[in-house]
């Protein structure tokens, strides 16, 4: 009940401030808000200080993602290697073949553990 009242107060306050934005203007450090020019400067600088870090973080993430994607295409990952599975002499033998041709035998324990995970 108390939480409901608190959230109502927050919503009503936000609604009032949206309807009358001048009440929300409060320069905490210079107390200069009041003139038309200063109101515009205050709003423009608030927008700049809000959007600039978001833009920089977004640009950095995009840049790193692009670099990682480029690195992926230039060098295939281990999971892209070929798996060879062939029953030999009645028993199942598992081996993995790397792109260079080197084969890697899998132990029975490794296969058992994989089966246990895969069901």
């Amino acid at each position, binding site marked *: 009940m108390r939480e409901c009242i608190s959230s109502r107060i927050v919503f009503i306050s936000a609604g009032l401030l949206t309807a009358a934005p001048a009440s929300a203007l409060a320069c905490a450090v210079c107390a200069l808000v009041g003139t038309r020019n200063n109101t515009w400067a205050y709003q423009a*600088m608030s927008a*700049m200080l809000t959007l600039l*870090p978001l833009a920089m973080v977004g640009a*950095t993430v995009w840049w790193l993602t692009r670099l990682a994607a480029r690195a992926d295409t230039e060098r295939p990952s281990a*999971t892209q290697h070929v798996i060879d599975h062939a029953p030999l002499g009645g028993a199942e033998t598992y081996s993995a073949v790397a792109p260079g041709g080197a084969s890697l035998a899998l132990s029975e324990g490794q296969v058992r*553990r994989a*089966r246990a995970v895969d069901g």
Partner: protein
Amino acid sequence: MAALHMSTWDRTARVVRPGARREVVPSGLLGMVIFVGTEVMFFAGLISAFTISKAGAPRGAWSLPAGQVLPLASTAVNTVALFASGALLWIAGRQYRARSPAAAQTLLAAVFLGSLFVMLQGREWVGLIGRGVTLRSSALGAFFYVIVGTHAAHAVAALAGLGVAWWRLRAGRLSYGFFLAAQTFWYFVVLIWPVIYARVYF
């Protein structure tokens, strides 16, 4: 079964051949990019305070004492030197990647032009202080010295980094990551300056 094969391979790859960590971007460059991001916000804060204070100042109150004006023309010349320095550094980067022996000379020329910018700015400061424009003389004077002085401090630090890069390049010990980091810092100094010039001087 295909799923079994892939998961078997994945686990085997981890057990037998641990996947090598790959560096998609040099650590020095990434650190410098993050640092430059914080510095951009630092300058954004200064410019924001300047803009709001200027907009709220009473008519005629936003000026230097005794009718002094900021040196627009000579600072424009300094700005050209700074941009030329940035362009030379870009060329030096291309030469460095191409393993050209001319890279060290181009880098040195970039450092020289950057140092010229700082020295000419210092000369202007001496002239302004001599004419009574100080930190305490007016709000504009205070903002001018704080913002331009902070930029000059960054320029000196970036020039020191470029100097170290040049020294290591000559000695054949310059790593690509260090060069990129120094280059990024100097580009920041070059590119933030037009914003400061347009905002503070006009």
